[in-house]
């Protein structure tokens, strides 16, 4: 078990590195822009895969968690505190003394003072986790359609809040978000010259996510989750604290979404209400379904492929329709995911025989 998983991680590393080297060799490194964005979306997808595939709980609200993370970080790092500091605001002075603020000039020579992205990101993660926790307690008591509807409702609420709140920029969203300097010299931003670094930042993050989830899945928690997925009542009867495990995974996966939101927001330099939209949540669910629900590698592969194509505009005006259609087709013809189709299995079986 363990050996195979670490082998998979190694292959993922190899693929990530070889793509970058290949783009460098062919002078096509502009592909890395969309691959970076795709990386962050993949983080949401593997997190959702944990909830859907392993714990068997459907969430149609993950774009909401992504948006909470992204918007919180965006607001905190764009709100100009210069005037507040001049007025002698106690809190701002305290933050300033603790070195948690960044003072700089914007493109047009105006002085700006904003919260350092690090504390902003930590606040965003804590906020998302607490919201997921509070929502999770009542919502995860529901099953099937009711759970889907409740999480859908949550997603709509977040979307509406983003659209109606002045500080969140209403329909325009938030622009001109500064880069996120993780460590000196390593910065999450969309500068053309910073592309290779950002590609690796995104995929190292995905890698960390993958390793965390693999460890989780192959631990006591993972076995408990699969028991819940198989038969919740039976799991309860043999002493698995189902409510506890469901909530635990829900919060973890919300945090994955929030982290993705924070990083992508800094990478893009902006966020708009479309990130919180229902179609985004549906898209995440569709990708996990295509990947085969309980297959993190499947979800990751399909997520990269479809998001990459979508971000490059390959689906043209039919973008949302493509994801809807994929969902229907998968549910009808390949409910266990594209990678579990019998065709593939035959191929891999025969390939396996050849290897002996």
């Amino acid at each position, binding site marked *: 078990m363990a050996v195979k998983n670490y082998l998979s991680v190694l292959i993922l590393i190899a693929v990530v590195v070889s793509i970058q080297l290949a783009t460098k060799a062919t002078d096509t490194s502009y592909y890395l822009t969309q691959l970076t964005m795709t990386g962050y979306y993949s983080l949401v997808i593997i997190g959702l895969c944990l909830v859907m595939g392993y714990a068997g709980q459907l969430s149609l609200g993950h774009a909401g968690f992504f948006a909470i993370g992204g918007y919180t970080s965006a607001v905190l790092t764009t709100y100009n505190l210069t005037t507040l500091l001049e007025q002698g605001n106690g809190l701002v002075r305290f933050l300033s003394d603790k070195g948690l603020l960044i003072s700089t000039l914007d493109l047009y020579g105006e002085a700006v003072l904003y919260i350092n992205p690090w504390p902003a990101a930590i606040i965003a993660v804590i906020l998302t986790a607490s919201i997921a926790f509070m929502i999770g307690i009542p919502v995860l008591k529901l099953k099937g359609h009711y759970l889907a509807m409740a999480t859908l409702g949550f997603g709509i609420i977040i979307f509406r809040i983003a659209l109606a709140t002045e500080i969140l920029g209403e329909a325009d969203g938030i622009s001109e978000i500064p880069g996120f300097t993780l460590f000196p010299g390593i910065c999450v931003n969309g500068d053309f010259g910073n592309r290779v670094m950002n590609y690796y930042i995104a995929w190292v993050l995905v890698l960390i996510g993958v390793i965390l989830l693999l460890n989780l899945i192959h631990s006591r928690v993972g076995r408990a989750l699969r028991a819940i997925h198989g038969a919740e009542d039976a799991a309860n009867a043999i002493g698995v604290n189902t409510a506890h495990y469901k909530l635990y995974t829900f919060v973890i996966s919300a945090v994955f979404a929030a982290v993705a939101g924070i990083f992508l927001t800094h990478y893009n330099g902006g966020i708009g209400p*479309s990130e919180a939209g229902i179609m985004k949540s549906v898209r995440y669910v569709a990708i996990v379904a295509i990947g085969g629900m309980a297959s993190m590698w499947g979800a990751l592969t399909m997520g990269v492929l479809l998001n990459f194509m979508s971000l490059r505009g390959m689906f043209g005006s039919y973008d949302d329709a493509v994801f809807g259609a994929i969902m229907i087709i998968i549910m009808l013809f390949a409910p266990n995911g594209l990678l579990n189709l019998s065709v593939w299995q035959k191929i891999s079986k025969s390939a396996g025989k050849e290897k002996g």
Partner: protein
Amino acid sequence: MKHFLSTTMLAIAAICLLFSGPAQAEDDTIKVGAILAVTGGASFLGGPESRTIEMQIEKINANGGIHGKKLELILKDSGANPEKAISFAKQLIEEEKVFAIVGPSTSGETMKIKNICEQGKTVLISCGAAEVIVNPVARYVFKTPQKDSFAVKKIYMVMNKLGIKKIAVLAGNTGFGKAGKGQLLAIAPEFGIEVVATEVYDKKATDLSAVVAKLMANKDIQAVVNWSIVPAQAIVAKNMRQAGWNVPLFQSHGFGNIKYVEAAGVAAEGIIFPAGRLLVADSLSADNPQKDVLMKYKNDYEAKFQEQASTFGGHGYDAIMVLAKAIEQAGPDKEKVRDAIENMKNFAGTGGIFNFSPEDHNGLDIDAFAMMTVKDGKFVLYE
């Protein structure tokens, strides 16, 4: 292990797809990128804009192109999603190496890619209305729609004439509504007007009688200004007349689409709003410098697409024609074209007479708007 093998195979397929690479640019074309919301919540903007731009490029090419080079349009549908606009902008600048970008349709998207175009030294001519696009001025970023603040001032001038002092402001929850509401509130004191009530409604609202009833209870209100671009504009008018409330109704330049008049029926009569002169092109006097441009665009568009030309399509027309004119003047050189746009004077577009300058990347003044009203189901100039 079987999972694994199929996953790896898919990954290989993905990589192959990756390196299928873009077609090489031919030397005798000039690539123009367009990022427009052809579908999604802002399709009423992006739809006419994309059709107009395609039509104009076809025409330019049919006439032999510019300096013997054909324009090649690369149109990307963002569906009004900012994250897609960002991805497309980077793609167009670095990968397609476009000469310039027209669009996006919305202000929110434009603000997301303003810095990207600035960094990529690529001219962006936006069809978004918000003033922040050109204020502060970014070297490479221009916009064609008239400023919201001019529309607001035009409305307030009429109110001053009519002796209206206290008003209510209604706005849809779109970027357009948001920007207009902000300008209405900010400029009111300059004209001695007091906004006594503000209401924001959902862009998909189908009935606003509750909002109207709430406002109607306030006897101080002498006029209502509604700022949106959605069908709700017709609904506001209907609900007000149904409730028997007869205060003047002002709308924004978003009302400049005859569909809304048809939807509101008799309730639309007497609505006052500022708009570009495209709507009244027929009745302009022959010596108006915009007359020829407007009539030609209107006739061409309506003949080709069998639908009324709107001022939104006009923003697309202005964007592509300003660019074409600049290329014609300066030749196919990015920097020179940028300078040519910045120094362009007296260019008659559908939105008004453009006079760009290093301080003004919009180039329109308050006279780009004319006040109009609805009479017998048609748009006429308001006297």
